[in-house]
């Protein structure tokens, strides 16, 4: 088991190294001189040379990469070109909203999707099943921001139940925090829910066709017990896999959701950074999100044992 974990960690490190290399290269793949971009203003060629020296842009690529990695390992993600603030500080300022949004979405999506998938599988072929699958394909096809606008239109503007935009700190109270996150979570989570529901249904169908389920039914176990105690647990592996993979969807969707709902999170930080070509921020955010994604999937891999003891490391 330990060997497996170590091996996976090793693989993870290699993956992160590839990401880091790609991310670092971003600055060099830009047309034009990164130093000129940073110098901005009415800079003279001397100023630009000075900046090149200061950033070490005249050193060979690998040396620069090495230096960057060392700084990275010390927690230094560089400095934003436009605000001169450290990227880590900018990200830290925006973590709470994004974290709140994605965790809430994750929680609600799984809570809703898994039961739906199970029920659809249990009633395979009936209208319940078809409508669930129908809705899920629909959910897949509507872009997040279109859905967001529809939700705002109904729940914020017409019914006035929920606020239109913004974010309240958790410290400001539970309801203000929650009410500002409900619509964004629904908008963001719909695709995620659909994905999980579909996979849950497919996995459950696979498992329900197995012999041991027939045995359980023959034994006289109540249908619900069969579903939960035997089927669901065995279907766990693909379900939890897709939950892990779906995190990428969440992250991508969060960017647009935060823009529509004016949530001051990392997603919006990214969008602003893209429009401004503020590369240090772009680099830092990609590293962060990739790191999280890789970590989550590592945890998912390690959790397989919980679901299927047959899986040996």
């Amino acid at each position, binding site marked *: 088991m330990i060997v497996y974990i170590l091996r996976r960690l090793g693989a993870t490190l290699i993956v992160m190294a590839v990401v880091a290399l790609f991310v670092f290269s971003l600055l060099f793949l830009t047309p034009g001189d990164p130093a000129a*971009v940073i110098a901005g*203003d009415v*800079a003279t060629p001397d100023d630009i040379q000075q900046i090149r020296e200061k950033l070490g842009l005249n050193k060979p690529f690998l040396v620069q990469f090495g230096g960057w990695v060392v700084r990275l390992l010390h927690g230094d993600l560089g400095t934003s070109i436009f605000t001169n603030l450290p990227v880590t500080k900018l990200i830290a300022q925006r973590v709470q909203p994004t974290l709140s949004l994605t965790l809430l979405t994750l929680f609600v999506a799984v809570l809703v999707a898994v039961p739906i998938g199970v029920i659809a599988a249990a009633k395979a072929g009936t209208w319940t099943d078809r409508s669930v699958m129908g809705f899920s394909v629909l959910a897949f096809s509507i872009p997040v921001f279109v859905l967001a606008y529809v939700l705002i239109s109904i729940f914020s503007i017409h019914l006035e*139940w929920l606020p239109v*935009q*913004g974010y309240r700190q958790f410290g400001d109270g539970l309801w203000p925090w929650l009410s500002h996150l409900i619509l964004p979570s629904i908008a963001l989570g719909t695709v995620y829910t659909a994905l999980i529901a579909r996979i849950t249904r497919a996995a459950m169908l696979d498992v329900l066709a197995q012999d041991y389920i027939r045995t359980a039914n023959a034994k006289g176990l109540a249908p619900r017990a069969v579903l939960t105690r035997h089927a669901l647990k065995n279907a766990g592996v693909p379900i939890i896999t897709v939950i892990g993979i779906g995190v990428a969807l969440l992250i991508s969707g969060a960017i647009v959701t935060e823009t529509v709902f*004016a949530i*001051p999170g990392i997603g919006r930080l990214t969008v602003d950074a893209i429009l*401004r*070509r503020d590369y240090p921020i772009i680099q830092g955010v990609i590293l962060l999100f990739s790191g999280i994604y890789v970590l989550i999937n590592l945890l998912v891999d390690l959790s397989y044992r919980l679901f299927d003891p047959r899986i040996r490391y």
Partner: protein
Amino acid sequence: MKVVAVSLRALALGLALVATSASAEKVLRFIPQADLRILDPITTTAYITRNHAYMVYDTLFATDAKFQVQPQMVDKWDLSKDKLTYTFTLRDGLKFHDGQPVRSADCIASIERWSKRDSLGQKLAQSTEAWTAVNDKTFKLKLKKPFPLTLGALGKLSSNVPFIMPERVAKTDAFKNITADDTIGSGPFKFVKEEWVPGSKVVYVKNTDYVPRKEAPSWAAGGKVVKVDRVEWIYIPDSATAAAALNAGEADWWEQLPPDLIPLLKKNKDVRVENIDPLGSLSVMRFNFLQPPFNNQKLREALLYVVNQKDYVLGIAGDEKNGHPCYSYYTCGTPLSTEVGAEPLKGKRDFDKAKKLIQESGYKGEKIVIISATDQPIVHAQSLITTELLRKLGLNVELQAGDWGTLITRRTSKEPVEKGGWSIFHTWLVGPDMISPGINMGLVSLGEKSWFGWPSDPKLEELREAWFETSDAAASKKAAEAVQLEAFKYVPFIPTAQFILPTAYRSNLSGVIIAPVTFLWNVDKK
């Protein structure tokens, strides 16, 4: 369903009251016109930075609602008989936010830094022999020749405003931005740098040590009495979201809204929509004179015959109530405004003439890059209209959009378009910034010393100088007309429309100052 909503709200309110540490602090939540990125009001002319500077800094003189220059930080001032020496004495009790008193040295260093960048300041510097500090509270300005606009320059209303900074900060190179750590002024608000979230929030608190003047506030002059404890600038790039925030009471004041959205707010009886700016603003199309193809006068002239100000008015202001054409290089509705020489822009649109001029100019299909900012509706609408216009003329045009912060950085580039340069950008200026040949920075044609675009026309400069020499209204008008005549030939920029930008605030606010610049003192919240 309404019952559900109301009871949900009541529950929420209850929870909120229990959960939060209720403070009786008065907080003014303001939605600014842009995102505050650059904190230095000297290196950039961007209005958002100017507005920020008005919060934390103070000025020696200031312009009031009658366009008169009044002393602000200055207590007494004197002009010698030969009009060559000004003596200024500062008021008592002026302190910077770090507790240090404001001294003459601070004022002198600040003015010198400002005059390196500002067009009027450059002119003042040309006529200046020396600034000397007599003691910490008194200093003198010795001129080489009389400069009647001295106080006008020192009390300039809009970009660049000669704000007073501590000496060590003012000693920063005039081409380098000052940082958040150096944002220390003597103004009515203090900048809370720990709470600054670029792209989202700027926080100011009342400067309890500030000593306001005794007079009533009038534009930038008079007593700057702060009636709230804390001001939060919440930047909301999406106009619909901002409107919703204002409607819901999540924000108190929206600095500028696109006129199209007025109907959204008019329905709400708790929100007031007003025209805060009596003169209105002017939108302009600015060229890059250092790079082809707009270094060619005939090509610029060609555009005069096809730009249809009515289109730009509608694109910016939505309808004729909120905007109108202004065929002048000076703000329409002000003394120097005139239509002399404006026939190419005002007359019937003539695509044939334009195409002929384009041919004569020898245009060989060079790429034209229009840089735009999608988060500034006024800029973006103009960019779209111009792009389509140039396309109709058969010119090789490309629209590249980023956000405003990118635009104001990119417009500093003098490179060709292949290296990230630009050919055209659009922006707008408030009325007071375009009232005369002296103030209108778009008319300065000193090459690299000019505003972004860097036009170079000795004739235009000669005529501008001549205007500076005039001393009575009639001569001033004639000189201004001469400047405009040459401007319509050289085309340093093309004025595209004049419009009013409404402001909207909740009705529990009082004391909002009606002025071309948004000032946040004197505003109270019930």
